[in-house]
């Protein structure tokens, strides 16, 4: 990796404390270096000023009967000095900041363009071949002293190593912000226009491995590096859980993956994957309450049951109802819920919707084992919904 002058391969001890030594791209390392430069500049002035302050406070502390010595009330030379020197340093910071900004926002024309969609509260990345990632990852920290909710799985977005990537982002509802801390950059994702930025993924080191779980639930170790993606612009209730994982993998694995995702598959499986990546944050399948109604077939929820609407009517949860709920969610609101769901028109193809339908239907036909599991959550679902 070609390291620019400001950044150093061996981050100093202090830099490691401040940033965690995980800058993943040239631009990131560069901006860390710039931060450290500003830090040392600030530290110099801070120590100077505080040192003088403490020294004066001790040296010139009030002694009974001793008046303050006269000293000049102003001194033009020194005042000009301490105006010009910081100003010049600020100019340097500005110019370097500008340069780093260009590194982070401008990407080469041949960069791989990923389409990022955001809505309350999930991310979706669409690859150049039109596929999107169905893989998800459990977040261990969410397992601590609470029961694991099915909504706590986060999508994994794969990108190939050592590649220029350009993001083109759009939000479906409110403003979000796509932040990958390890690339040291973020940009707001805005509903009425596209925004974006670029980064170059790092080359993988030998020590970079991640655990991958395949369709059959078999885990294996593959070369790769995981990074957090956070939503950094406040967007509502589940703002703090609007996260995802960016997984950098070798080019072969990436190519294989997106080719596989691009091929048609069993609608039920497709539906389940879509639910995991897009719907699970609001809709549970085990009956636990969420922002939206659960899909579990219990207590009047789930496929085939009547839904009580907030305008007082009742509707059958059939194919049409579900289709409409996806495309024009706010046409009918289930009683007790807020109209929080964005429309997925343009987001989901007909195949996707068929897949979801198949998945939702399959939940209603699920065997008695699952029913038992769901029993425990019954009371709660009833009281909240």
């Amino acid at each position, binding site marked *: 990796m070609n390291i620019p002058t400001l950044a150093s391969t061996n981050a100093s001890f202090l830099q490691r404390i401040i940033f965690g030594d995980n800058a993943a791209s040239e631009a990131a390392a560069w901006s860390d270096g710039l931060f450290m430069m500003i830090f040392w500049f600030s530290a110099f002035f801070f120590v100077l000023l505080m040192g003088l302050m403490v020294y004066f406070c001790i040296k010139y502390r009030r002694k009974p009967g001793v008046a303050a010595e006269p000293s000049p009330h102003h001194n033009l030379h020194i005042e000009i000095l301490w105006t010009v020197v910081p100003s010049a340093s600020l100019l340097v910071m500005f110019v370097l900041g500008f340069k780093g900004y260009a590194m982070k926002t401008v990407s080469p024309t041949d960069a791989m363009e990923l389409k990022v969609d955001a809505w309350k509260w999930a991310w979706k990345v669409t690859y150049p071949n039109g596929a999107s990632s169905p893989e998800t990852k459990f977040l261990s920290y969410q397992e601590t002293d609470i029961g694991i909710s099915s909504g706590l799985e986060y999508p994994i977005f794969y990108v190939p190593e050592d590649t220029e990537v350009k993001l083109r982002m*759009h939000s479906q*509802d409110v403003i979000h912000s796509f932040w990958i801390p390890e690339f040291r950059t973020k940009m707001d994702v805005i509903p009425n226009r*596209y925004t974006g930025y670029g980064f170059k993924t790092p080359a993988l080191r030998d020590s970079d491995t991640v655990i991958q779980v395949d369709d059959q639930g078999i885990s294996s170790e593959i070369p790769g590096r995981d990074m957090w993606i956070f939503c950094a612009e406040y967007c509502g209730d589940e703002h703090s859980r609007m996260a995802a994982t960016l997984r950098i993998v070798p080019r072969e694995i990436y190519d294989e993956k997106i080719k596989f995702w691009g091929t048609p598959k069993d609608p039920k499986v497709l539906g389940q994957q879509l639910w995991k990546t897009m719907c699970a944050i609001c809709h549970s399948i085990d009956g636990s309450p969420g922002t939206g109604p659960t899909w579990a077939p219990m207590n009047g929820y789930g496929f085939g049951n009547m839904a009580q609407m907030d305008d007082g009517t009742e509707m059958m949860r059939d194919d049409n109802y579900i289709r409409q709920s996806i495309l024009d969610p706010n*046409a009918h609101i289930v009683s007790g819920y807020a109209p929080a769901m964005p429309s997925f028109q343009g987001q989901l193809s007909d195949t996707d919707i068929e897949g979801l339908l198949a998945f939702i239907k399959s939940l209603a036909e699920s065997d008695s084992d699952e029913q038992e599991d769901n029993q425990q959550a019954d009371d709660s679902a009833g009281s909240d919904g």
Partner: protein
Amino acid sequence: MSNHDTHAEEHAHGHPVVSWQIQLGVLLALLFFTFATVLFYNAESWVEHAFEIHLPGWVNIVGAMSIATVKAILVCMFFMGLKYDKALNTFAMLFCLFCVGLFLGFSMIDLDTRDRVEPWRKAEASLGGTGKSLDSPPIDARFDANPSPSVSTGGLSIVEFRRQQKLEEKGSEEAFWSYYYKKHAEHQHSADINNYFAKLGYDHHVELPTANKAVPRHGLTPGLFAAVDPKEAAHDKSADDHSDDSDH
């Protein structure tokens, strides 16, 4: 006192009194400038219609705004007495206008230059936002007996949605447009109806009174400094619309 009135200014209790001649003169000047700006507006439209000379967009804006500025200066100086007053008051007003300038200027710079690095950043991605349909559930009945209007536009813009509603109400496009014609012939202010008919494939040519309808013309940003032929503009516009659709 009448003999004093001939002076431009006199002083009552140390404060300047503006003479009635100056006040009347300023009023006449203001009325004249009002006439001038209206005349300018109509002359411009007339030139375009009669001679098909297409003036660039800024002519209209600069004309109207500079006349308005002159009028505002007259009001400030004479009616509000800034000419005779402490300079401090003028300074306060000028600094405030400076702040207004900053406010407008910087906001517009941002909204106008979002496409400098990647052209697609400018594009209006969609009429998205609050969930595409303008839903507003009724305000809590405890606090409001008259809930605010709730509209579910099903993903359409409200303009398009209202059009669909009216089309449904009228039954056919024929009925829709004849209703439009009737309504707007009465009110004498109208949009370019022939354009619509042409777009829809009808061959109607309705001559509407044009009193309040100038040519559609491109505005400040695109083609501010270019004279735009309305027919071409209409053509370009539909082309633009098309490309936007495909973009999404």
